[in-house]
């Protein structure tokens, strides 16, 4: 292994967080980076003058975000601290190897709140790339750090960052199932639902305010929609038989669902309040795992109509069914990317269940994971990373894999199995 080949970084970032109660901390996610991109942009984030504790929280959040993305290499800032208005010796920073440089400051406003200001520089061109000021409470400093990291990410890569997004997942620990929500770095975890019965298939509403999921608390699978802020939830589908696999329409008004009320599993659409049920498929076998394409025109789904489970697509209103996957005898859990360019799914190859990505233009398929029990893929809103559930050492873990397979992160909880990940939309 070459030192300059950074694809095998194995650096554990322990993310214990003192703000959380002990009851939550035991289910805290920790993240391990197990692979990074080949060409990483070298950046320096200097310390921000002002409140040293606040500076540390913000700059360490920014640095950890950028490092974890696999697209940046952090250049040592030599413990230097200067603010966003300090003159920059671009040639000096260029010589240190930093293409990007961020400096900032923290001040306390009259009402006791904190103001974090920063500016980003391109040392190659010797120009400012802009900046912003965030006024925040001291408990929200990490959120400000994520916003700064998103700004830097977007300016230097040309893509939107996802550091301010949230993820949902299910933890199974001590006979309980916890539906949890955490920031994209695994911090700030909160439990939305606790149940003694399984919870599966959480999916975020496009506005990020609600989750649809399947709960077994009524001794059978029933679909709920759950508003995260209020904790209010309602049943969307509790028909005779099984109700499962919800997928939101991009406008957030409808869900594609799977019901067995008419026999085997078939696809239906239903309004988010449970009204307006419409049957979408009429097959003699299994149709399941529906997901709308980003433009809302197409639904991808899994069906055994051809003899083995394969991915198909159809018009969102039903009909015009076309087979999408052909290699192998088990291709399931299709997830179209938010940018509409690719399709992630789980493919069984030689007994291994692996994450595969299809380029929808060329129909080329690439296996992008190196784990063997992959399930439940979920795209980041910028389509760059895919979160999956997998197993390491007999434990359920989450893994984030870039759509080209180069960048890999692993998310684990200390005291249980974590599964059923769902990456939330951009923060609105």
């Amino acid at each position, binding site marked *: 292994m070459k030192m300059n080949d950074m694809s095998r970084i194995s650096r554990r970032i322990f993310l214990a967080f003192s703000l959380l109660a002990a009851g939550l901390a035991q289910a805290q996610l920790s993240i391990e980076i197990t692979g990074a991109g080949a060409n990483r942009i070298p950046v320096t984030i200097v310390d921000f003058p002002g409140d040293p504790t606040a500076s540390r929280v913000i700059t360490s959040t920014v640095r950890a975000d950028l490092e974890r993305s696999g697209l940046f290499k952090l250049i040592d800032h030599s413990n230097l601290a200067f603010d966003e208005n300090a003159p920059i010796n671009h040639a000096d920073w260029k010589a240190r190897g930093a293409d990007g440089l961020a400096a900032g400051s923290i001040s306390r406003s009259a009402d006791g709140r904190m103001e974090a200001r920063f500016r980003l520089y391109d040392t190659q061109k010797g120009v400012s790339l802009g*900046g*912003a000021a*965030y006024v925040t409470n001291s408990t*929200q400093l990490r959120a*400000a750090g994520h916003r700064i990291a998103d700004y830097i990410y977007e300016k230097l890569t040309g893509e939107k960052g996802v550091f301010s997004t949230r993820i949902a997942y299910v933890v199974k620990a001590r006979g309980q199932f916890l539906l949890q929500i955490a920031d994209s770095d695994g911090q700030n975890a909160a439990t*939305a639902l606790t*149940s003694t019965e399984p919870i599966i298939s959480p999916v975020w509403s496009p506005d990020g305010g609600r989750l649809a999921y399947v709960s077994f608390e009524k001794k059978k*699978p029933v679909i709920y929609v759950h508003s995260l802020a209020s904790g209010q939830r309602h049943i969307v589908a509790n028909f005779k038989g099984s109700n499962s696999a919800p997928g939101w329409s991009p406008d957030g008004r409808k869900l594609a669902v*799977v019901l067995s009320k008419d026999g085997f599993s078939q696809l239906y659409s239903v309004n988010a309040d449970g009204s307006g049920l419409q049957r979408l498929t009429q097959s003699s076998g299994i149709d399941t795992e529906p997901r709308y394409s980003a433009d809302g025109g197409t639904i991808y789904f899994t069906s055994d109509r051809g003899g083995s489970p394969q991915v198909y697509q159809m018009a969102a209103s039903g009909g015009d069914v076309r087979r999408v996957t052909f290699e192998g005898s088990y291709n399931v859990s299709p997830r179209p990317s938010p940018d509409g360019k690719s399709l992630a799914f789980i493919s069984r190859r030689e007994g291994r269940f692996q994450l595969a990505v299809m380029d929808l233009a060329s129909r080329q398929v690439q296996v992008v994971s190196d784990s063997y029990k992959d399930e439940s893929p979920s795209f980041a809103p910028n389509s760059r990373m895919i979160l999956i559930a997998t197993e390491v050492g*007999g434990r359920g873990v989450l893994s984030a894999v870039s759509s080209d397979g180069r960048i890999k992160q692993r998310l684990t909880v200390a005291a249980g199995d974590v599964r059923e990940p769902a990456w939330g939309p951009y923060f609105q």
Partner: protein
Amino acid sequence: MKKLLIPALLSALLVGCSTTPLPEDANGAPVESRSGSSTGVAPVTAGGLDASGLPRELTDPKSKLAQRSIYFDLDSYEVKGEYKDLVASHAKYLVANKGFKVLLQGNTDERGSREYNLSLGQKRAEAVKRSLTLLGVQEAQIESVSLGEEKPKNAGHDEAAWSENRRADILYRAADGRGEF
């Protein structure tokens, strides 16, 4: 204590934020509080159900009707011949006791997609349902559902465990609403 502690903790983290752009190219988006709490997530606990109050012939271990599990071969959704008598006994009981209802829960082993397994478990439950209705049980007395791979009887990860988990279970509910589901 935790139930009390968590909302208290969340409300203790109540925040509000706003943004002041820098004069130059300041298009950074604001940091906002998420619906009033640091996480914007209110915790909820789901309720459980109790099972009780069935006649002894359904629960006495010596009774044939206390046998409630039907096992399936790998990738198979057919009720095997060895379960014919068992299914017939349950059919006879349900025909004689039309006020009783059954919930048929199909199960699978852990391999593969959770949602696809849910659909496979449904196939197993449907197979048992078909056997019962062919023997005269009314459809209204039966609900067939799937638990997929979510409720394994055996938590192991080998063929011995998997064969125990490829299963359909019969749960009863009496006319007065008491029972196992």
